[in-house]
């Protein structure tokens, strides 16, 4: 039973990666968690709920994307509960963060659909969903890393230097103020 990998390149993060000098993708677990936590919980919840609702409510089917590989054909004919239980990793690359979710196919389709609605033209299909959509954009597009004051940044760097022992006597300016020893 093969596990399908669904890869979404939201907002063309690939473009930035290829043009950049280097791209620090090393992230701690904490950062991953925080990236995931930045998705509005209600939205995730609503996606999960809509995923478990009957597919009939969904009027427009998800058009096939080049990267989207359908899961094992066996699962499509099985009961809904079986489809729900067969999860595959969903990797989202966005703006330098990487989030991985284990989702069943139907939930993945909902996420895809939401992304396409967002990245397409601003359509006012229904007031509720447009509100949700805007919140979704809000969460992702405004993911600015918190800035630090320059003085603190300098201090933290110097402290690291001292610990690493890069400077003599562990001090960054051990010989500042000439001839202190006289």
């Amino acid at each position, binding site marked *: 039973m093969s596990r399908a990998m669904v890869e979404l390149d939201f907002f063309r993060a690939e473009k930035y990666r290829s043009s950049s000098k280097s791209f620090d993708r090393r992230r701690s677990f904490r950062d991953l968690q925080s990236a995931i936590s930045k*998705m*509005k919980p209600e939205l995730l919840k609503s996606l999960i709920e809509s995923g478990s609702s009957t597919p009939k409510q969904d009027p427009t089917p998800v058009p096939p994307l080049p990267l989207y590989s359908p899961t094992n054909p066996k699962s499509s004919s099985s009961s809904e509960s079986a489809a729900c239980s067969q999860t595959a990793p969903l990797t989202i690359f966005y703006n330098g963060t990487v989030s991985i979710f284990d989702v069943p196919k139907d939930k993945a389709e909902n996420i895809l659909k939401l992304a396409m609605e967002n990245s397409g033209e601003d359509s006012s299909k229904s007031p509720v969903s447009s509100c949700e959509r805007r919140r979704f954009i*809000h969460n992702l597009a405004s993911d600015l890393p918190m*800035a630090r004051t*320059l003085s603190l940044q300098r201090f933290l760097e110097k*402290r690291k230097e001292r610990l690493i022992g890069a400077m003599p006597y562990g001090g*960054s300016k051990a010989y500042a*103020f000439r*001839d*202190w020893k006289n």
Partner: protein
Amino acid sequence: MEERNVKTNVPMPDVVLQCLMPYIHDPRDRASISLVCRRWNQIDAMTRKRVTIAMCYSTTPQRLRRRFRNLESLKLKGKPRAAMFNLIPEDWGGYVTPWVNEIAKSFDCLKAVHFRRMIVKDSDIELLARSRGQQLESLRLDKCCGFSSDGLFHIGRFCRRLKTLFIEESLLIYERDGEWLHELAMNNTALETLNFYQTDITRVRFEDLELMARNCRSLVSVKISDSEFLGLVNFFRTASMLEEFGGGSFNEEAERYNVVSFPPKICRLAIPYVEKDKISIVNPVASSLKKLDLLYSLLDTEDHCLLIQRCPNLEVLECRDVIGDRGLEVLAQCCRRLRRLRIERGADDQGMEDEEGLVSQRGLMALAQGCLELEYLAVYVSDITNLSLEYVGTYLKNLCDFRLVLLDREAVIRDLPLDNGVRALLRGCQKLIRFALYLRSGGLSDIGLKYVGQYSENVRWMLLGYVGQTDEGLLEFSKGCPSLQTLEMRACNFSERALAAAVMRLPSLRYLWVQGYGASTTGNDLLAMARPFWNIELIPPRQIVIDNQNGQEVVDEQPAHIIAYYSLAGPRTDFPATVRPLQPQHP
């Protein structure tokens, strides 16, 4: 008997007014007075001693000279506050040259000059020193850049009456030598405050500090750059009037520091790089300390607790969040006179700071109940609740300035949104003038943002980060905030249309900074806020190469900024390539 006809419209003689005016110092009172009538405007103009120009491009040196000829003290601010966080291109602007040129020509009474976040060249300093050196008593180059030690030399040479020289956190382009300090020490006997703290100055000599201490018997405040503390022993012996000291670093074994003895009147200290085994040098003076800066110390939570317990007279404390909730509890018990507390963000990498080094609602609630005199509270928290904000509103009635930043260390903050807590805080702290709330997605709903607008009657400056959900929130917010003059917003992702509409509605707004919004390529929707005397500038998105915390070079995506402000000077004439004006197309 003489009948006195008391006419209701007898004008107050000018002489009386001219006697009264100098007693009115508050700039807002002065501003009101100047609007009464032309005569009052003229008398205010003649007698106004201090002016602060919060945005240097809002007016011109010539206009300043025409109106306030007899100015004694001038403060100018240039770059947006975001420059302190490395968000603004270094060549953004804020050049002092046109101002210094005018000062040299016209301001014969000027004694104090303060430039903050501006670009200052050596030639500017030289001109200022040569032209006004005999009368200059105070020169502050505060977080400035563009000058070298050569420029500083002119100060030593020409400013013999200088009482205050302050260049804290300025970025020198070049340090030739320490001659500037030697020159100052040789020529000056009036100096009271010397500050080159948090600069990269290394070539000055301890002997010159000692010379200065001998010559300037009024020297009360000295803050220097990193230097070995042991080299200061003689200086401390000589500077017997010293009340404030900051700087130095500790590179030798702990026992060697037994010889360090602070001057007897010392009551304000800032000690970078001090560790557990050396902090005891503070013990003899701890009970007199009114101000303590541990921002750049190497202490852990326990060290903070032990030290704070020794300082019952503390009024001002600055530290990183390594102080922890436990440290705040100690503070609440021991330092009842605390007026100002700033808790900054420590290293993200938990290995670098104490495990206990986190501040949360627990510490905040203890603090609120214990330190009732607090006027300024700025804190980076790792966790927060509505209740703790209610406590702030209930207990801290003297709070004028409150800043809360929610770090993203914890994946889940259970008590979001903070709508009710923020409302309680704003309603409780009636004296609040400055307010900053930097949260995360879901931190404050549209309703919460509306509360901020409703209950911030006296707030003049606000920084909002990750607040609200939709444009509706911003629009509701803008119905309130009657006193809001300066608004900074980051990562709120409102649309350009909503931003423009909000600006048009906020009655007192004179300065706006936004980064992380629904930026379009043209910015055309922002033109809805185009109006006379309102300059709109954009810093388009940039990619800059920076060093991340692992020391690697990474590409940092900097989204677009909007800077908008009232100006009598028209659009700037000195835009760098990174900044462009937004102007409506005239037919």
